[in-house]
Protein backbone atom coordinates (compact mmCIF):
# COMPACT_ATOMS: atom_id res chain seq x y z
CA UNK A 1 0.00 0.00 0.00
CA UNK A 2 2.96 2.30 0.52
CA UNK A 3 3.70 2.67 -3.13
CA UNK A 4 0.50 4.19 -4.39
CA UNK A 5 0.38 3.32 -8.00
CA UNK A 6 -0.98 6.05 -10.24
CA UNK A 7 -2.67 3.51 -12.43
CA UNK A 8 -4.73 2.29 -9.47
CA UNK A 9 -6.68 5.55 -9.46
CA UNK A 10 -8.11 4.88 -6.03
CA UNK A 11 -8.49 7.47 -3.34
CA UNK A 12 -7.41 6.31 0.07
CA UNK A 13 -9.69 8.22 2.41
CA UNK A 14 -10.63 7.25 5.95
CA UNK A 15 -13.32 4.96 4.55
CA UNK A 16 -10.72 2.91 2.73
CA UNK A 17 -8.81 2.16 5.91
CA UNK A 18 -12.01 1.35 7.81
CA UNK A 19 -12.89 -1.07 5.02
CA UNK A 20 -9.42 -2.55 5.14
CA UNK A 21 -9.71 -3.20 8.88
CA UNK A 22 -13.20 -4.67 8.59
CA UNK A 23 -11.95 -6.90 5.81
CA UNK A 24 -9.03 -8.03 7.96
CA UNK A 25 -11.38 -8.95 10.80
CA UNK A 26 -13.51 -10.86 8.30
CA UNK A 27 -10.38 -12.58 7.09
CA UNK A 28 -9.80 -13.88 10.61
CA UNK A 29 -13.25 -15.46 10.78
CA UNK A 30 -12.48 -17.24 7.52
CA UNK A 31 -8.95 -18.28 8.34
CA UNK A 32 -9.27 -19.17 12.03
CA UNK A 33 -11.31 -22.36 11.44
CA UNK A 34 -8.78 -23.49 8.83
CA UNK A 35 -5.86 -22.61 11.09
CA UNK A 36 -7.57 -24.39 13.97
CA UNK A 37 -8.00 -27.51 11.89
CA UNK A 38 -4.27 -27.66 11.10
CA UNK A 39 -3.15 -26.83 14.64
CA UNK A 40 -5.54 -29.32 16.22
CA UNK A 41 -4.32 -32.04 13.88
CA UNK A 42 -0.85 -31.60 15.39
CA UNK A 43 -1.89 -31.72 19.03
CA UNK A 44 -1.97 -34.72 21.31
CA UNK A 45 -5.31 -35.95 22.64
CA UNK A 46 -4.56 -34.51 26.08
CA UNK A 47 -3.55 -31.14 24.74
CA UNK A 48 -6.78 -30.96 22.73
CA UNK A 49 -8.77 -31.28 25.92
CA UNK A 50 -6.85 -28.52 27.60
CA UNK A 51 -8.78 -25.43 28.67
CA UNK A 52 -7.96 -22.71 27.80
CA UNK A 53 -6.77 -24.14 24.49
CA UNK A 54 -3.21 -23.57 23.29
CA UNK A 55 -2.82 -21.63 20.07
CA UNK A 56 0.27 -23.51 19.02
CA UNK A 57 0.94 -27.17 19.81
CA UNK A 58 3.29 -27.59 22.78
CA UNK A 59 4.62 -30.69 21.15
CA UNK A 60 4.05 -31.51 17.49
CA UNK A 61 2.19 -34.79 17.26
CA UNK A 62 2.62 -36.01 13.69
CA UNK A 63 1.50 -39.48 14.73
CA UNK A 64 -2.11 -38.34 14.26
CA UNK A 65 -1.53 -38.46 10.53
CA UNK A 66 -0.12 -41.96 10.72
CA UNK A 67 -3.14 -43.00 12.77
CA UNK A 68 -5.50 -41.89 10.01
CA UNK A 69 -3.88 -44.47 7.74
CA UNK A 70 -4.30 -47.12 10.44
CA UNK A 71 -7.95 -46.33 11.06
CA UNK A 72 -9.06 -46.30 7.46
CA UNK A 73 -7.71 -47.16 4.02
CA UNK A 74 -6.97 -43.52 3.41
CA UNK A 75 -4.70 -44.22 0.44
CA UNK A 76 -7.41 -46.24 -1.24
CA UNK A 77 -9.99 -43.47 -0.72
CA UNK A 78 -7.51 -40.95 -2.00
CA UNK A 79 -6.90 -43.02 -5.09
CA UNK A 80 -10.65 -43.41 -5.67
CA UNK A 81 -11.29 -39.70 -5.28
CA UNK A 82 -8.41 -38.46 -7.38
CA UNK A 83 -8.64 -41.01 -10.19
CA UNK A 84 -12.39 -40.69 -10.62
CA UNK A 85 -12.14 -36.90 -10.42
CA UNK A 86 -9.42 -36.83 -13.08
CA UNK A 87 -11.32 -39.16 -15.37
CA UNK A 88 -14.55 -37.21 -14.88
CA UNK A 89 -12.73 -33.97 -15.61
CA UNK A 90 -11.14 -35.19 -18.82
CA UNK A 91 -14.37 -36.76 -20.04
CA UNK A 92 -16.42 -33.77 -18.94
CA UNK A 93 -14.21 -31.28 -20.74
CA UNK A 94 -14.24 -33.26 -23.98
CA UNK A 95 -17.96 -33.95 -24.00
CA UNK A 96 -18.63 -30.30 -23.15
CA UNK A 97 -16.26 -29.00 -25.82
CA UNK A 98 -17.39 -31.42 -28.53
CA UNK A 99 -21.09 -30.96 -27.94
CA UNK A 100 -20.65 -27.21 -27.46
CA UNK A 101 -18.86 -27.17 -30.80
CA UNK A 102 -21.58 -29.13 -32.54
CA UNK A 103 -24.29 -26.89 -31.11
CA UNK A 104 -22.39 -23.74 -32.04
CA UNK A 105 -21.13 -24.59 -35.51
CA UNK A 106 -23.26 -27.30 -37.09
CA UNK A 107 -26.77 -27.07 -38.38
CA UNK A 108 -29.04 -30.03 -37.89
CA UNK A 109 -32.71 -30.64 -37.45
CA UNK A 110 -34.05 -29.79 -34.02
CA UNK A 111 -30.84 -28.15 -32.90
CA UNK A 112 -32.39 -25.22 -31.08
CA UNK A 113 -35.11 -27.34 -29.53
CA UNK A 114 -32.62 -29.90 -28.28
CA UNK A 115 -30.34 -27.21 -26.92
CA UNK A 116 -33.05 -25.46 -24.97
CA UNK A 117 -34.32 -28.78 -23.70
CA UNK A 118 -30.86 -29.42 -22.28
CA UNK A 119 -30.75 -25.92 -20.81
CA UNK A 120 -34.12 -26.42 -19.16
CA UNK A 121 -32.75 -29.50 -17.42
CA UNK A 122 -30.01 -27.36 -15.92
CA UNK A 123 -32.70 -25.54 -13.94
CA UNK A 124 -33.68 -28.71 -12.10
CA UNK A 125 -31.80 -29.17 -8.83
CA UNK A 126 -30.09 -32.43 -9.64
CA UNK A 127 -29.88 -33.56 -6.01
CA UNK A 128 -33.63 -34.08 -5.97
CA UNK A 129 -33.25 -36.71 -8.70
CA UNK A 130 -30.89 -38.88 -6.66
CA UNK A 131 -33.55 -41.37 -5.57
CA UNK A 132 -34.78 -42.38 -9.05
CA UNK A 133 -31.22 -42.22 -10.36
CA UNK A 134 -30.14 -44.61 -7.64
CA UNK A 135 -33.00 -46.96 -8.54
CA UNK A 136 -31.96 -46.85 -12.20
CA UNK A 137 -28.35 -47.60 -11.27
CA UNK A 138 -29.49 -50.53 -9.14
CA UNK A 139 -31.40 -51.79 -12.18
CA UNK A 140 -28.24 -51.52 -14.28
CA UNK A 141 -26.28 -53.33 -11.58
CA UNK A 142 -23.86 -50.40 -11.50
CA UNK A 143 -23.98 -49.66 -7.79
CA UNK A 144 -20.77 -50.54 -5.98
CA UNK A 145 -18.74 -50.27 -9.15
CA UNK A 146 -16.55 -47.49 -10.44
CA UNK A 147 -19.10 -46.90 -13.18
CA UNK A 148 -21.45 -45.22 -10.76
CA UNK A 149 -18.72 -42.83 -9.60
CA UNK A 150 -17.74 -41.82 -13.12
CA UNK A 151 -20.36 -42.15 -15.86
CA UNK A 152 -22.95 -39.83 -14.23
CA UNK A 153 -20.27 -37.12 -14.20
CA UNK A 154 -19.23 -37.52 -17.83
CA UNK A 155 -21.55 -34.90 -19.24
CA UNK A 156 -22.03 -31.50 -17.72
CA UNK A 157 -24.81 -29.45 -19.25
CA UNK A 158 -23.45 -26.24 -17.81
CA UNK A 159 -20.05 -26.97 -19.35
CA UNK A 160 -21.72 -27.61 -22.67
CA UNK A 161 -23.52 -24.30 -22.53
CA UNK A 162 -20.30 -22.52 -21.62
CA UNK A 163 -18.29 -24.13 -24.40
CA UNK A 164 -20.97 -23.31 -26.94
CA UNK A 165 -20.70 -19.63 -25.94
CA UNK A 166 -16.96 -19.66 -26.60
CA UNK A 167 -17.21 -21.71 -29.80
CA UNK A 168 -19.68 -19.25 -31.28
CA UNK A 169 -17.02 -16.56 -31.18
CA UNK A 170 -14.67 -18.59 -33.38
CA UNK A 171 -14.98 -17.57 -37.07
CA UNK A 172 -16.30 -20.40 -39.23
CA UNK A 173 -13.54 -19.62 -41.75
CA UNK A 174 -11.08 -21.54 -39.60
CA UNK A 175 -13.17 -24.67 -39.82
CA UNK A 176 -13.60 -24.35 -43.57
CA UNK A 177 -9.91 -23.69 -44.09
CA UNK A 178 -9.05 -26.79 -42.07
CA UNK A 179 -11.49 -28.84 -44.11
CA UNK A 180 -10.09 -27.64 -47.40
CA UNK A 181 -6.66 -28.60 -46.14
CA UNK A 182 -8.04 -32.08 -45.74
CA UNK A 183 -8.50 -32.27 -42.00
CA UNK A 184 -11.04 -34.75 -40.77
CA UNK A 185 -13.82 -33.36 -38.58
CA UNK A 186 -12.19 -34.70 -35.43
CA UNK A 187 -8.78 -33.45 -36.49
CA UNK A 188 -10.28 -30.01 -37.14
CA UNK A 189 -11.72 -30.01 -33.69
CA UNK A 190 -8.65 -31.22 -31.84
CA UNK A 191 -5.95 -29.28 -33.69
CA UNK A 192 -7.77 -26.11 -34.69
CA UNK A 193 -10.80 -25.46 -32.54
CA UNK A 194 -9.91 -26.89 -29.17
CA UNK A 195 -6.61 -24.96 -28.81
CA UNK A 196 -8.57 -21.74 -29.34
CA UNK A 197 -10.83 -22.35 -26.37
CA UNK A 198 -8.07 -23.71 -24.16
CA UNK A 199 -8.38 -20.99 -21.47
CA UNK A 200 -12.09 -21.66 -21.10
CA UNK A 201 -11.43 -25.39 -21.09
CA UNK A 202 -8.82 -24.96 -18.34
CA UNK A 203 -11.32 -23.08 -16.21
CA UNK A 204 -13.95 -25.72 -16.90
CA UNK A 205 -11.44 -28.40 -15.87
CA UNK A 206 -11.15 -26.86 -12.44
CA UNK A 207 -14.89 -26.54 -12.11
CA UNK A 208 -15.42 -30.19 -13.04
CA UNK A 209 -12.56 -31.48 -10.92
CA UNK A 210 -13.79 -29.70 -7.82
CA UNK A 211 -17.37 -30.79 -8.42
CA UNK A 212 -16.27 -34.40 -8.61
CA UNK A 213 -13.62 -34.34 -5.87
CA UNK A 214 -15.91 -32.69 -3.34
CA UNK A 215 -19.14 -34.45 -4.26
CA UNK A 216 -20.68 -36.20 -1.31
CA UNK A 217 -24.35 -37.00 -1.73
CA UNK A 218 -24.13 -39.24 -4.80
CA UNK A 219 -21.13 -41.35 -3.69
CA UNK A 220 -22.75 -41.63 -0.26
CA UNK A 221 -25.89 -43.10 -1.76
CA UNK A 222 -24.53 -45.16 -4.58
CA UNK A 223 -21.55 -46.89 -2.98
CA UNK A 224 -21.66 -49.18 0.05
CA UNK A 225 -18.44 -51.07 -0.43
CA UNK A 226 -15.58 -49.56 1.55
CA UNK A 227 -13.21 -50.28 -1.33
CA UNK A 228 -15.03 -47.72 -3.44
CA UNK A 229 -15.44 -44.95 -0.90
CA UNK A 230 -14.24 -41.53 -1.96
CA UNK A 231 -12.59 -39.17 0.50
CA UNK A 232 -15.73 -37.26 1.60
CA UNK A 233 -17.66 -40.49 2.16
CA UNK A 234 -14.70 -42.14 3.89
CA UNK A 235 -14.23 -39.10 6.09
CA UNK A 236 -17.90 -39.14 7.01
CA UNK A 237 -17.66 -42.86 7.86
CA UNK A 238 -14.58 -42.23 9.99
CA UNK A 239 -16.58 -39.57 11.80
CA UNK A 240 -19.26 -42.16 12.57
CA UNK A 241 -16.67 -44.63 13.91
CA UNK A 242 -14.13 -42.40 15.59
CA UNK A 243 -15.87 -39.04 15.71
CA UNK A 244 -14.85 -38.34 19.27
CA UNK A 245 -11.13 -38.40 18.41
CA UNK A 246 -10.86 -34.89 17.11
CA UNK A 247 -7.09 -35.04 16.61
CA UNK A 248 -7.64 -37.90 14.20
CA UNK A 249 -10.54 -36.17 12.46
CA UNK A 250 -8.59 -32.93 12.04
CA UNK A 251 -5.58 -34.77 10.64
CA UNK A 252 -7.86 -36.48 8.14
CA UNK A 253 -9.61 -33.22 7.19
CA UNK A 254 -6.24 -31.49 6.78
CA UNK A 255 -5.01 -34.18 4.42
CA UNK A 256 -8.17 -33.95 2.33
CA UNK A 257 -8.10 -30.18 2.15
CA UNK A 258 -4.36 -29.50 1.87
CA UNK A 259 -3.80 -30.45 -1.80
CA UNK A 260 -6.77 -28.34 -2.86
CA UNK A 261 -5.45 -25.37 -0.86
CA UNK A 262 -2.02 -25.68 -2.44
CA UNK A 263 -3.37 -25.93 -5.98
CA UNK A 264 -5.73 -23.07 -5.28
CA UNK A 265 -2.85 -20.91 -4.04
CA UNK A 266 -0.84 -21.69 -7.18
CA UNK A 267 -3.64 -21.25 -9.68
CA UNK A 268 -5.92 -18.78 -7.94
CA UNK A 269 -6.87 -17.00 -11.15
CA UNK A 270 -7.94 -20.19 -12.91
CA UNK A 271 -9.84 -21.36 -9.88
CA UNK A 272 -11.79 -18.17 -9.48
CA UNK A 273 -12.47 -18.07 -13.23
CA UNK A 274 -13.52 -21.71 -13.30
CA UNK A 275 -15.78 -21.65 -10.32
CA UNK A 276 -17.49 -18.33 -10.98
CA UNK A 277 -18.13 -18.88 -14.69
CA UNK A 278 -21.68 -19.76 -13.84
CA UNK A 279 -22.30 -16.40 -12.30
CA UNK A 280 -20.57 -14.29 -14.88
CA UNK A 281 -21.54 -16.08 -18.03
CA UNK A 282 -24.93 -17.49 -17.21
Amino acid at each position, binding site marked *: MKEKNLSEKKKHGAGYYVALVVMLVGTLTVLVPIYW*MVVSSLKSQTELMQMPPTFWPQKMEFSNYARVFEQMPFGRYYFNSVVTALLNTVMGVFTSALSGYVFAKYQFKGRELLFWLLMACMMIPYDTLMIPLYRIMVGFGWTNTYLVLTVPYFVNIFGMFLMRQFMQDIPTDYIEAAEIDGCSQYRTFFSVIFPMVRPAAAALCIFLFMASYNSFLWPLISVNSRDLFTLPVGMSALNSDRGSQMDLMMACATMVVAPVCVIFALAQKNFVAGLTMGGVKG
Partner: protein
Amino acid sequence: MSEAKLLAKEPTASKSPASKGQRRKVPFKELIHQRQFKRRAFVASILIPLLVWFFIFMFLPIVMVVIYSFTNAHMAYPDYKFVGLHQYIKMFTADPILPIALRNTVMAVLYIVPTTVILSVLLANGLNAMTSKWQKFYTFVYFLPSVLSAVAISLVWKWLYHQNYGLINAMLGALGLPAQGFINSASQALICYAVIQIWSIFGYYAVILLAAIQGIDPSLYEAADIDGANGMEKFFKITVPLIKQNILFVCIMATINGFMIFTPIQVLTEGKGTPGTSTMVLMMHIMKRGINNSDIGYASAMSLLLMSIILVVSVIQSLLTRERKPKKRS
Protein backbone atom coordinates in the same frame (compact mmCIF):
# COMPACT_ATOMS: atom_id res chain seq x y z
CA MET B 1 -25.83 -13.10 -36.25
CA SER B 2 -22.98 -13.38 -38.71
CA GLU B 3 -22.19 -16.87 -37.53
CA ALA B 4 -22.29 -19.19 -40.52
CA LYS B 5 -23.96 -22.53 -40.29
CA LEU B 6 -21.77 -25.12 -41.93
CA LEU B 7 -24.36 -27.61 -43.02
CA ALA B 8 -26.85 -24.95 -44.00
CA LYS B 9 -24.68 -23.73 -46.83
CA GLU B 10 -24.34 -27.00 -48.65
CA PRO B 11 -27.91 -27.77 -49.75
CA THR B 12 -28.25 -24.39 -51.46
CA ALA B 13 -25.02 -24.98 -53.32
CA SER B 14 -25.99 -28.44 -54.55
CA LYS B 15 -29.50 -27.37 -55.50
CA SER B 16 -28.27 -24.64 -57.84
CA PRO B 17 -29.35 -25.48 -61.42
CA ALA B 18 -25.81 -25.79 -62.74
CA SER B 19 -25.05 -28.73 -60.53
CA LYS B 20 -28.17 -30.69 -61.49
CA GLY B 21 -27.34 -33.79 -63.37
CA GLN B 22 -23.68 -33.01 -63.82
CA ARG B 23 -22.54 -33.87 -60.39
CA ARG B 24 -20.29 -36.65 -61.69
CA LYS B 25 -18.41 -34.29 -63.91
CA VAL B 26 -17.60 -31.70 -61.26
CA PRO B 27 -15.16 -33.09 -58.73
CA PHE B 28 -15.56 -30.06 -56.48
CA LYS B 29 -19.23 -30.81 -55.98
CA GLU B 30 -18.36 -34.35 -55.12
CA LEU B 31 -15.93 -33.08 -52.56
CA ILE B 32 -18.63 -30.99 -50.97
CA HIS B 33 -20.92 -33.94 -50.97
CA GLN B 34 -18.39 -36.10 -49.33
CA ARG B 35 -17.67 -33.40 -46.80
CA GLN B 36 -21.30 -33.06 -45.91
CA PHE B 37 -21.50 -36.75 -45.23
CA LYS B 38 -18.45 -36.48 -42.99
CA ARG B 39 -20.04 -33.62 -41.15
CA ARG B 40 -23.24 -35.55 -40.60
CA ALA B 41 -21.25 -38.51 -39.32
CA PHE B 42 -19.30 -36.24 -37.00
CA VAL B 43 -22.44 -34.63 -35.59
CA ALA B 44 -24.04 -38.03 -35.12
CA SER B 45 -20.95 -39.49 -33.46
CA ILE B 46 -21.19 -36.78 -30.81
CA LEU B 47 -24.91 -36.36 -30.45
CA ILE B 48 -25.80 -40.03 -30.18
CA PRO B 49 -23.66 -40.79 -27.10
CA LEU B 50 -24.70 -37.44 -25.65
CA LEU B 51 -28.36 -38.24 -26.10
CA VAL B 52 -27.93 -41.71 -24.66
CA TRP B 53 -26.29 -40.22 -21.58
CA PHE B 54 -28.91 -37.51 -21.42
CA PHE B 55 -31.68 -40.06 -21.65
CA ILE B 56 -30.32 -42.27 -18.87
CA PHE B 57 -29.06 -39.69 -16.42
CA MET B 58 -31.41 -36.78 -16.96
CA PHE B 59 -34.58 -37.64 -18.79
CA LEU B 60 -35.17 -41.01 -17.15
CA PRO B 61 -34.72 -39.76 -13.54
CA ILE B 62 -37.06 -36.83 -14.23
CA VAL B 63 -39.72 -39.12 -15.68
CA MET B 64 -39.17 -41.78 -13.03
CA VAL B 65 -39.42 -39.38 -10.10
CA VAL B 66 -42.88 -38.44 -11.34
CA ILE B 67 -43.91 -42.04 -12.05
CA TYR B 68 -42.57 -43.41 -8.76
CA SER B 69 -44.41 -40.75 -6.82
CA PHE B 70 -47.70 -42.31 -7.97
CA THR B 71 -46.64 -45.86 -7.13
CA ASN B 72 -45.66 -47.90 -4.11
CA ALA B 73 -42.18 -48.54 -5.53
CA HIS B 74 -39.84 -50.12 -3.01
CA MET B 75 -36.19 -51.02 -3.34
CA ALA B 76 -36.70 -54.56 -2.11
CA TYR B 77 -39.35 -55.49 -4.66
CA PRO B 78 -38.85 -55.21 -8.40
CA ASP B 79 -42.58 -54.77 -9.04
CA TYR B 80 -44.64 -51.81 -8.09
CA LYS B 81 -48.20 -50.83 -8.65
CA PHE B 82 -49.98 -47.60 -9.27
CA VAL B 83 -51.44 -46.17 -6.08
CA GLY B 84 -52.73 -42.82 -7.33
CA LEU B 85 -52.28 -39.93 -4.97
CA HIS B 86 -51.66 -42.19 -2.00
CA GLN B 87 -48.05 -41.02 -1.48
CA TYR B 88 -49.11 -37.39 -1.63
CA ILE B 89 -51.93 -37.95 0.83
CA LYS B 90 -49.52 -39.79 3.10
CA MET B 91 -47.16 -36.82 2.91
CA PHE B 92 -49.69 -34.47 4.48
CA THR B 93 -51.56 -36.84 6.79
CA ALA B 94 -49.42 -39.77 7.88
CA ASP B 95 -45.91 -38.39 8.21
CA PRO B 96 -45.29 -36.57 11.48
CA ILE B 97 -41.69 -35.77 10.50
CA LEU B 98 -42.43 -34.00 7.21
CA PRO B 99 -43.98 -30.82 8.70
CA ILE B 100 -40.99 -30.59 11.04
CA ALA B 101 -38.56 -31.11 8.18
CA LEU B 102 -40.35 -28.50 6.10
CA ARG B 103 -40.31 -26.00 8.94
CA ASN B 104 -36.62 -26.62 9.66
CA THR B 105 -35.74 -26.27 6.00
CA VAL B 106 -37.64 -23.00 5.66
CA MET B 107 -35.98 -21.71 8.84
CA ALA B 108 -32.57 -22.68 7.46
CA VAL B 109 -33.35 -20.80 4.24
CA LEU B 110 -34.43 -17.76 6.24
CA TYR B 111 -31.19 -17.86 8.22
CA ILE B 112 -29.00 -18.47 5.22
CA VAL B 113 -30.32 -16.39 2.33
CA PRO B 114 -30.52 -12.83 3.72
CA THR B 115 -27.24 -13.18 5.61
CA THR B 116 -25.40 -14.66 2.65
CA VAL B 117 -26.70 -12.07 0.22
CA ILE B 118 -26.00 -9.08 2.47
CA LEU B 119 -22.54 -10.34 3.42
CA SER B 120 -21.60 -11.06 -0.17
CA VAL B 121 -22.81 -7.68 -1.46
CA LEU B 122 -20.87 -5.86 1.27
CA LEU B 123 -17.80 -7.99 0.71
CA ALA B 124 -17.95 -7.49 -3.04
CA ASN B 125 -18.08 -3.75 -2.47
CA GLY B 126 -15.19 -3.99 -0.03
CA LEU B 127 -13.12 -6.04 -2.47
CA ASN B 128 -13.84 -3.52 -5.21
CA ALA B 129 -12.49 -0.68 -3.06
CA MET B 130 -9.15 -2.43 -2.53
CA THR B 131 -6.02 -1.87 -4.54
CA SER B 132 -5.42 -4.80 -6.84
CA LYS B 133 -2.73 -6.32 -4.60
CA TRP B 134 -5.03 -6.44 -1.59
CA GLN B 135 -7.92 -7.45 -3.75
CA LYS B 136 -6.03 -10.53 -4.86
CA PHE B 137 -5.13 -11.42 -1.28
CA TYR B 138 -8.66 -10.99 0.03
CA THR B 139 -10.20 -12.82 -2.91
CA PHE B 140 -7.92 -15.73 -2.11
CA VAL B 141 -8.89 -15.77 1.55
CA TYR B 142 -12.63 -15.32 1.18
CA PHE B 143 -12.86 -17.68 -1.76
CA LEU B 144 -10.91 -20.42 0.00
CA PRO B 145 -13.79 -22.03 1.97
CA SER B 146 -15.81 -22.58 -1.19
CA VAL B 147 -13.16 -24.84 -2.75
CA LEU B 148 -12.83 -27.06 0.31
CA SER B 149 -14.71 -30.29 0.82
CA ALA B 150 -17.98 -29.63 2.62
CA VAL B 151 -17.47 -32.76 4.72
CA ALA B 152 -14.05 -31.56 5.92
CA ILE B 153 -15.51 -28.14 6.71
CA SER B 154 -18.34 -29.73 8.67
CA LEU B 155 -15.85 -31.69 10.77
CA VAL B 156 -13.81 -28.56 11.45
CA TRP B 157 -16.91 -26.76 12.66
CA LYS B 158 -17.90 -29.74 14.74
CA TRP B 159 -14.64 -29.25 16.60
CA LEU B 160 -15.10 -25.48 16.84
CA TYR B 161 -18.61 -26.00 18.24
CA HIS B 162 -17.49 -28.65 20.74
CA GLN B 163 -19.35 -28.09 23.95
CA ASN B 164 -16.45 -28.64 26.37
CA TYR B 165 -13.27 -28.11 24.39
CA GLY B 166 -14.38 -26.13 21.36
CA LEU B 167 -12.67 -22.90 20.40
CA ILE B 168 -15.88 -20.87 20.35
CA ASN B 169 -16.85 -21.84 23.88
CA ALA B 170 -13.28 -21.18 24.98
CA MET B 171 -13.55 -17.68 23.53
CA LEU B 172 -16.92 -17.12 25.18
CA GLY B 173 -15.37 -18.31 28.43
CA ALA B 174 -12.53 -15.83 28.06
CA LEU B 175 -15.11 -13.06 27.69
CA GLY B 176 -16.89 -14.28 30.82
CA LEU B 177 -19.90 -15.60 28.91
CA PRO B 178 -21.53 -18.96 29.63
CA ALA B 179 -20.67 -21.93 27.40
CA GLN B 180 -23.28 -22.72 24.76
CA GLY B 181 -24.56 -26.07 23.56
CA PHE B 182 -24.32 -25.17 19.85
CA ILE B 183 -24.98 -28.31 17.82
CA ASN B 184 -26.05 -30.15 20.97
CA SER B 185 -28.73 -27.61 21.77
CA ALA B 186 -32.11 -28.03 20.09
CA SER B 187 -32.61 -24.28 19.84
CA GLN B 188 -29.16 -23.46 18.43
CA ALA B 189 -28.25 -26.43 16.25
CA LEU B 190 -30.01 -25.32 13.07
CA ILE B 191 -28.46 -21.85 13.28
CA CYS B 192 -25.06 -23.47 13.76
CA TYR B 193 -25.50 -25.47 10.55
CA ALA B 194 -26.71 -22.37 8.73
CA VAL B 195 -23.51 -20.63 9.86
CA ILE B 196 -21.41 -23.42 8.33
CA GLN B 197 -23.28 -23.04 5.05
CA ILE B 198 -22.93 -19.23 5.08
CA TRP B 199 -19.26 -19.36 6.04
CA SER B 200 -18.41 -21.68 3.22
CA ILE B 201 -20.18 -19.87 0.40
CA PHE B 202 -20.48 -16.11 0.91
CA GLY B 203 -16.99 -15.38 -0.42
CA TYR B 204 -17.84 -17.26 -3.60
CA TYR B 205 -20.91 -15.12 -4.22
CA ALA B 206 -18.93 -12.00 -3.38
CA VAL B 207 -16.47 -12.81 -6.17
CA ILE B 208 -19.35 -13.25 -8.62
CA LEU B 209 -20.73 -9.87 -7.56
CA LEU B 210 -17.28 -8.28 -7.70
CA ALA B 211 -17.08 -9.12 -11.40
CA ALA B 212 -20.43 -7.37 -11.87
CA ILE B 213 -19.34 -4.29 -9.91
CA GLN B 214 -16.15 -4.06 -11.93
CA GLY B 215 -18.29 -3.99 -15.05
CA ILE B 216 -20.02 -0.77 -13.98
CA ASP B 217 -19.01 2.26 -16.01
CA PRO B 218 -16.61 4.26 -13.76
CA SER B 219 -17.86 7.52 -15.21
CA LEU B 220 -21.07 7.02 -13.23
CA TYR B 221 -19.08 7.20 -10.01
CA GLU B 222 -17.11 10.17 -11.28
CA ALA B 223 -20.37 11.98 -12.05
CA ALA B 224 -21.64 11.12 -8.58
CA ASP B 225 -18.41 12.48 -7.08
CA ILE B 226 -18.92 15.75 -8.90
CA ASP B 227 -22.47 15.92 -7.56
CA GLY B 228 -21.03 15.44 -4.09
CA ALA B 229 -22.46 12.00 -3.36
CA ASN B 230 -20.97 10.16 -0.41
CA GLY B 231 -19.95 6.52 -0.31
CA MET B 232 -23.30 5.33 1.04
CA GLU B 233 -25.25 7.13 -1.66
CA LYS B 234 -22.97 5.77 -4.36
CA PHE B 235 -23.44 2.25 -2.97
CA PHE B 236 -27.23 2.38 -2.77
CA LYS B 237 -27.96 4.55 -5.80
CA ILE B 238 -25.39 3.27 -8.28
CA THR B 239 -23.83 -0.03 -7.28
CA VAL B 240 -26.85 -1.88 -5.96
CA PRO B 241 -29.31 -0.93 -8.73
CA LEU B 242 -26.81 -1.72 -11.46
CA ILE B 243 -25.94 -5.17 -10.19
CA LYS B 244 -29.52 -6.01 -9.27
CA GLN B 245 -29.68 -8.89 -11.73
CA ASN B 246 -26.51 -10.39 -10.30
CA ILE B 247 -27.81 -9.99 -6.77
CA LEU B 248 -30.93 -11.80 -7.90
CA PHE B 249 -28.78 -14.59 -9.28
CA VAL B 250 -26.97 -14.88 -5.95
CA CYS B 251 -30.31 -14.81 -4.15
CA ILE B 252 -31.68 -17.68 -6.21
CA MET B 253 -28.49 -19.71 -5.86
CA ALA B 254 -28.41 -19.14 -2.10
CA THR B 255 -32.08 -20.10 -1.84
CA ILE B 256 -31.55 -23.32 -3.76
CA ASN B 257 -28.51 -24.14 -1.63
CA GLY B 258 -30.50 -23.33 1.49
CA PHE B 259 -33.35 -25.65 0.56
CA MET B 260 -30.84 -28.36 -0.31
CA ILE B 261 -28.92 -28.03 2.98
CA PHE B 262 -27.72 -31.53 3.71
CA THR B 263 -24.01 -32.22 4.03
CA PRO B 264 -23.11 -30.61 7.39
CA ILE B 265 -26.22 -31.97 9.09
CA GLN B 266 -25.88 -35.41 7.54
CA VAL B 267 -22.23 -35.69 8.59
CA LEU B 268 -22.51 -34.25 12.08
CA THR B 269 -25.76 -35.92 13.12
CA GLU B 270 -25.09 -39.09 11.12
CA GLY B 271 -28.35 -38.59 9.27
CA LYS B 272 -30.49 -38.40 12.39
CA GLY B 273 -31.24 -34.68 12.55
CA THR B 274 -30.49 -34.58 16.26
CA PRO B 275 -30.93 -33.13 18.87
CA GLY B 276 -34.50 -34.43 18.75
CA THR B 277 -35.78 -33.51 15.32
CA SER B 278 -34.47 -29.96 15.51
CA THR B 279 -32.18 -30.29 12.48
CA MET B 280 -34.13 -32.78 10.39
CA VAL B 281 -34.30 -31.06 7.02
CA LEU B 282 -36.19 -32.03 3.89
CA MET B 283 -33.24 -33.36 1.93
CA MET B 284 -32.23 -35.59 4.83
CA HIS B 285 -35.76 -36.83 5.31
CA ILE B 286 -35.94 -37.73 1.62
CA MET B 287 -32.67 -39.65 1.81
CA LYS B 288 -33.73 -41.38 4.99
CA ARG B 289 -37.03 -42.57 3.57
CA GLY B 290 -35.73 -43.29 0.08
CA ILE B 291 -32.38 -44.90 0.82
CA ASN B 292 -32.48 -46.15 4.42
CA ASN B 293 -36.12 -47.25 4.36
CA SER B 294 -36.03 -48.06 0.61
CA ASP B 295 -39.42 -46.38 0.19
CA ILE B 296 -38.75 -44.97 -3.28
CA GLY B 297 -42.33 -44.06 -4.03
CA TYR B 298 -42.71 -41.87 -1.01
CA ALA B 299 -39.23 -40.33 -1.33
CA SER B 300 -39.99 -39.47 -4.96
CA ALA B 301 -43.17 -37.68 -3.96
CA MET B 302 -41.17 -35.65 -1.43
CA SER B 303 -38.45 -34.94 -4.00
CA LEU B 304 -41.10 -33.50 -6.27
CA LEU B 305 -42.41 -31.40 -3.40
CA LEU B 306 -38.93 -30.01 -2.76
CA MET B 307 -38.37 -29.43 -6.47
CA SER B 308 -41.62 -27.50 -6.82
CA ILE B 309 -40.92 -25.39 -3.71
CA ILE B 310 -37.55 -24.41 -5.14
CA LEU B 311 -39.05 -23.67 -8.53
CA VAL B 312 -41.84 -21.52 -7.11
CA VAL B 313 -39.51 -19.56 -4.84
CA SER B 314 -37.05 -18.92 -7.69
CA VAL B 315 -39.83 -17.73 -9.98
CA ILE B 316 -41.21 -15.42 -7.29
CA GLN B 317 -37.77 -13.96 -6.68
CA SER B 318 -37.27 -13.32 -10.39
CA LEU B 319 -40.68 -11.69 -10.72
CA LEU B 320 -40.07 -9.43 -7.72
CA THR B 321 -36.94 -7.97 -9.26
CA ARG B 322 -38.14 -8.03 -12.82
CA GLU B 323 -40.27 -4.92 -13.36
CA ARG B 324 -37.91 -2.38 -14.84
CA LYS B 325 -35.12 -3.99 -16.77
CA PRO B 326 -35.90 -7.39 -18.21
CA LYS B 327 -32.60 -9.17 -18.54
CA LYS B 328 -31.59 -9.82 -22.11
CA ARG B 329 -29.10 -12.54 -22.70
CA SER B 330 -27.92 -14.17 -25.81
